């Protein structure tokens, strides 16, 4: 298989993982108006939970689901007991998420040590499969499939359900949403848990590709930031497109300009910022 | 030459047209009143004139000079000043500091990072004078937070006047004031010399009619009637809007 094809499939895979990470980040930003700086920690925490659960003998997918739920629970606690105290003071909320991210990182370091931990690819998805006569790594195809499925489910939830309509209304105009009787604070908790859970789940299924190591949180958070700045906050489509763009840039950047991969990654973000500050798919500020 | 000329001004928020092809022509020294029911687009019109909002189409001229493409901050330098309906002073600062900031806005001194602001005697003298002009000279050192609503209205006017504007936009200067406070504000406005052209938005017809020479009636973002006091009061459309006839 040639290099370009490998790079492309790797890009799409990373894009899928990033979508799982950034969809929640974007919704939280759109709804609560805060960049949740613990989001990278949620990803890492999920990955570590997954490692431990797998070590206890749970199957990979069950471990991924449980880790996602565990992280969602943690997110819920953070939202209910910390962020809730600071409603109306977005800056304080951001600083708290920053402080929490440092604490989570250190706790993970204490609990799981400083060495990278590799995660085995789940049995049955090892090796490659033939699609259109070409061999693709099966596990990566599975990740892409899962990401697309979750994207579709999220879209359906946001677009077709009452809950989704309430979230969209609250993203558009929180004050008005309150007036028409939507319990915005419940939505906050729900979206925060959802975002955290997705990030945690992504951490586990990303494990076989990225492995788990201290600093994974700080590697993932900027990627989520870039996706949201590129795509615009609160927009699912923006997250999806932004994720795949970032996935491509990251992999091709690393292959072609290894020293400048980071610059290549952030350059489009800077261009978007200058030309269209609200992001490619973001709504205009009222 | 007109002091303020507005031609075919349009503005929409989303699908809502708040200003529909508004034309306005104010002569130098004129006292113009803009009235209209709530939501008629009066404050939006002011925001468009000062450049705080961008018009979708149309043009504006100040003494023959095209304002349309000038950013808001340049319009202040060209001689346009305004007061605000909901008072937006700097509440933690003294009245003197508020007026000083207003004066500084048009002075090159505002970029100076070295001299002490409270040693600029010329600036401070002017600020004191502006406060004295609205009858608040004795409160110069008081923080805005400790003054009454009526006093703040007068500080608003002092801040605008301190910039020696050629055209002054007053946004509901009497709203929410007691009878005594209204009288104070009216005195201040009546004392403004004729080289300042005034455009005022006001709800209170009694006070406003006393002041106005020409009146423009705005309704749903459109100019319905314009003319002298008598013409407007007698106009059937005015009665329709205001009296529901």
């Amino acid at each position, binding site marked *: 298989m040639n290099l370009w094809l490998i790079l492309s499939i790797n890009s799409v895979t990373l894009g899928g993982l990033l979508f799982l990470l950034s969809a929640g980040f974007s919704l939280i930003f759109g709804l609560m108006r*805060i*960049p949740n*700086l613990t989001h990278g920690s949620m990803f890492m925490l999920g990955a570590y939970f997954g490692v431990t659960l797998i070590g206890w003998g749970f199957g990979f997918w069950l471990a991924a689901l449980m880790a996602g739920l565990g992280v969602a629970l943690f997110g819920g606690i953070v939202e209910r007991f910390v962020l809730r*105290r*600071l409603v109306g*003071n977005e800056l*304080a909320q*951001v*600083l*708290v998420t*920053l*402080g*929490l*991210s*440092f*604490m989570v*990182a*250190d706790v993970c*370091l*204490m609990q799981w040590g400083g060495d990278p931990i590799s995660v085995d690819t789940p049995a049955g998805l090892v090796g490659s499969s033939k699609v259109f006569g070409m061999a693709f790594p099966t596990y990566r195809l599975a990740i892409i499939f899962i990401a697309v499925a979750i994207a579709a489910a999220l879209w359906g939830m946001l677009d077709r359900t009452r809950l989704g309509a309430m979230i969209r209304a609250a993203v558009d105009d929180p004050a008005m949403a309150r007036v028409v009787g939507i319990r915005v604070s419940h939505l906050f908790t729900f979206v925060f848990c959802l975002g955290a859970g997705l990030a945690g789940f992504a951490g586990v299924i990303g494990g076989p590709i990225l492995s788990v190591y201290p600093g994974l949180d*700080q590697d993932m958070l*900027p990627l989520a*930031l*870039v996706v949201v*700045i590129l795509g615009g906050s609160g927009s699912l489509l923006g997250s999806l497109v932004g994720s795949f763009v970032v996935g491509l840039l990251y992999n091709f950047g690393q292959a072609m300009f*290894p*020293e400048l*991969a*980071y*610059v290549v990654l*952030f350059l489009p*973000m800077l261009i978007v910022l*200058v030309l269209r*500050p609200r992001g490619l798919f973001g709504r205009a500020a009222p | 030459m007109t002091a303020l000329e507005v031609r075919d001004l349009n503005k929409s928020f989303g699908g809502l047209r708040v200003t529909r092809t508004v034309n306005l022509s104010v002569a130098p020294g004129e006292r113009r009143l803009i009235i209209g029911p709530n939501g008629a687009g009066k404050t939006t019109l002011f925001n468009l004139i*000062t450049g*705080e909002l961008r018009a979708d189409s149309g043009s504006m001229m100040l003494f023959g000079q095209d304002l349309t493409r000038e950013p808001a*901050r*340049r319009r*202040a*330098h060209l001689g346009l000043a305004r007061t605000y309906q909901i008072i*937006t002073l*700097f509440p*933690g600062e003294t009245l003197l*500091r508020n007026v*000083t*900031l207003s004066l*500084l*806005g*048009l002075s090159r*001194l*505002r*970029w*100076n*990072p070295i*001299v*002490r*602001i*409270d040693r*600029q005697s010329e600036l401070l003298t002017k600020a004191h004078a502006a406060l004295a002009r609205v009858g608040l000279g004795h409160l110069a050192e008081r923080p805005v937070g400790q003054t009454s609503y009526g006093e703040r209205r007068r500080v608003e006017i002092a801040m605008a006047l301190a*910039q020696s504007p050629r055209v002054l936009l007053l946004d509901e200067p009497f709203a929410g004031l007691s009878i005594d406070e209204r009288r104070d504000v009216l005195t201040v406005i009546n004392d403004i010399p004729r080289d300042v052209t005034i455009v005022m938005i006001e709800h209170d017809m009694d006070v406003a009619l006393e002041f106005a020479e020409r009146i423009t009636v705005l309704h749903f973002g459109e100019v319905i009637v314009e003319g002298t006091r008598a013409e407007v009061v007698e106009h059937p459309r005015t009665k329709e809007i205001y009296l529901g006839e």
Partner: protein
Amino acid sequence: MNRAALAIALLLLATLPFWIGNSFYVNVATQMLIYAIFALGLNVLVGYAGLVTLGHAALFGVAAYAGATLINSGHGHIIVAIGACLATLAVAAIFAVLALRGTGLGFVMITVALGQIAWGIAYRWISLTNGDNGVSINARPAPFGLSLESAPALYWATLVVFLVAVVAMAIFVASPFGASLRGARDQPRRMTALGYNVWLIRFLAFLFSGFWSGVAGLLYLYYNQFVSPQTVALSASAEALLMVIAGGTGTLLGPIAGAILVIVMKDIASAYIERWNFVLGAIFVLIVVFMPEGLVPGVVRLCRRVIAARRPRAPMPVLGEESGE
């Protein structure tokens, strides 16, 4: 009275190496001064401009990296100082142009991203920055023939720069431009209508803030003789922000007190536990949740509340005073 206090403080600061003796503690004092300069610079943005940034360690780091590169290519101290400052100003200008595209939290987010770019370059652009290994300098430069090799010598040099920074800040805050900046923080729209160019005011403030961050970064290089990607990491920006917030934003002395406090805590914490980052995070959370006005005023308020609670029949005026805050 005030002048006497100032004179005593100056005297104590100037003679510190004599009465403190041990060069370890002199170095700690130097470190405090360096971070106090950094915090003073950061406070221009966070306190006076109301623009919270989480990318300022990048500016601190640029100066250090530029200084190290210039020193290692054999340049003299003047070229090093000028070069480091110019590099910082150039990067600060780029940061400002980009970050000022956003307001409020958008600004914060962009500074995080920009800080991460700087970190990525420090970490990955190995031919420029030597990657994870960092850059070290063999000896401190000797400005105007004065050796900075001993701990007291470096302390005094840093003290001079620190005093210049404090005086510059005091002048800046009391100047018309300082007043414009605070106006732009509180009511940008109103300031625009008054004829101010709010964007340019913020941009210049960003440069001023960046300049002092760069000065601190260069001193840090002289002190440490080594700079690594850790210097520009997000946690370094967070630490600096904590200094400003802990001391109380928008005051002259707050950032200085905050810098001293954070360095002391860091030294104490690292003597007992390895987990400085955990402590840093925890302090952040505690300060923000319980004393958002800053640690110094916050402690005073909490103490007062405890005292008031112990004396149930506290006179009413005390309570009134508290609610008036």
